[in-house]
């Protein structure tokens, strides 16, 4: 059994964060924190030991999700996956993130994405099919899904 993931949720919509937490836990992982702003996210990155952070681009203090990703990237303790309804706002280099789950995602899409990410982080590269609505960053595409 592969070790489950510790997840940090950075999302300003309470409803979405709540549901995401349930889906993460149903899939056998744990949620170590929920932040709604970039400042909250920063302090939670310090106080928790998340494996992965799901980061929305729009937070309560504006479109600061990319900054949060940069910050997490500098700490080198956890990985980042963006979760946004506006994937066009993500810079080309993805701020070091693994990829993006485009909103609106489906329940199955998210569950598949969690499985895919767990495989990728625990025993790279992932073996299951990449879920619909999940896009890898160019850097991770090269490592996790090299063109045959």
């Amino acid at each position, binding site marked *: 059994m592969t070790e489950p993931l510790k997840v940090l949720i950075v999302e300003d919509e309470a409803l979405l964060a709540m549901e995401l937490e349930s889906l993460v836990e149903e899939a056998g992982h744990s949620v170590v924190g929920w932040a709604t702003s970039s400042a909250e996210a920063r302090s939670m990155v310090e106080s928790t030991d998340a494996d992965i952070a799901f980061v929305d681009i729009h937070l309560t203090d504006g479109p600061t999700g990319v900054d949060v990703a940069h910050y997490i990237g500098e700490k080198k303790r956890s990985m980042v996956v963006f979760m946004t309804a*506006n994937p066009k706002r993500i810079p080309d280099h993805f701020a070091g993130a693994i990829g993006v789950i485009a909103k609106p995602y489906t329940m199955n899409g998210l569950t598949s994405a969690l499985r895919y990410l767990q495989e990728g982080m625990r025993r790279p590269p992932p073996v299951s099919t990449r879920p619909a609505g999940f896009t890898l960053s160019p850097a991770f595409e090269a490592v996790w899904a090299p063109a045959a």
Partner: protein
Amino acid sequence: MDWKRTREPDDAWHMTDDLHVEHGKGDPFAAAIRATRMSMIITDPRRPDNPIVFANEAFLRLTGYERHEVLGKNCRFLQGPKTDKSAVEHIRTAIADNADVSVDILNYRKDGSTFWNALYISPVSNHKGEVQFFFASQLDVSDRKLSEHRMTADKDRFERAVKERTAELEAALEAQTTLLHEVDHRVKNNLQMISSLIIMQRRTIKDEATRHSLTTMLERIEALSTVHRRLYQSKDVSRFDVSDFAKDLVTDLLTASGRSGIEPKLELDPIVISAEKATPVALMVNELVTNALKHAFKEGPDGTTAGRIGIKMSQPDGHFKIEVSDDGVGMAEANGDASFGMRLIKSLARQLHADIEWHDAGPGTKVVISMPNEQQQKRTLS
């Protein structure tokens, strides 16, 4: 005018070296220069500061000076504060080089009023090639200059107006794009919230039939979500690639746990439809695929379901054709929810002017939907 009868010295037309003396009165050339409407002067470069030695009536009329006020003076008294320094320099250089010069220059009258002077100066040499005089004519071109200025001003004004209008339009377009992104963002977030609410509600429900209803509802809403995600991923929001959608949908429905025994067979031509057809087509495909998955396949003795589901999309002769097939138990097993699904499919088909046929594929079922599709740019242009 009795100049014909006046006798003058033979050399009078030379106008003599001393033009202060009123010589050449009977000479036709001198008389013409004195009387012409064209303002003319003559200067003597051999004297200090190249003074005016002759000025005709027209010059005096144009500038407003008396003859005694101009004779013996250099012409620079015509210049004023708004006279272009480079035009003055241009004249100075020409005179220093004993060359012709033609220039438009702003000059000042005695009363301080200004006029545009189309000045022409040319040197007059003797037989040895030594410059004796400069001959200068002045033409008042203020009217021409005024219309030139007006034209330039008009042109500037038009250019400014066009620039402003362009900026306005660009700003409007920018605002519209921002608005579209904002609306898109909200629609996506709201769809996500609707899904989340249904999932949360479902968690609290024990009754299997109610849970099942909510699941079906969630699948329909997620089909709409997938349309939205796909629609705004492309650059052209008025077109929708149905084959990409079908891939997403099938991947999504099959990756749900316990469905690994069902093998999808996809034969998808890239087919683009207009955005307003995206939702009904997507809902219809969703109904057919979820129906097949739920009702066509029976659990085997080992608790897993196995089978094959096929989706084929093609576009023969301008018609968009969707075929959904399975090798399951066939149509006879349809229950109450499936009949609502059936009604949904039939209504959507009416909206799309589509024909539906159900075939008993023995084993299994094949549904064929055919609808007119005018959007064929993707095929013809690419």
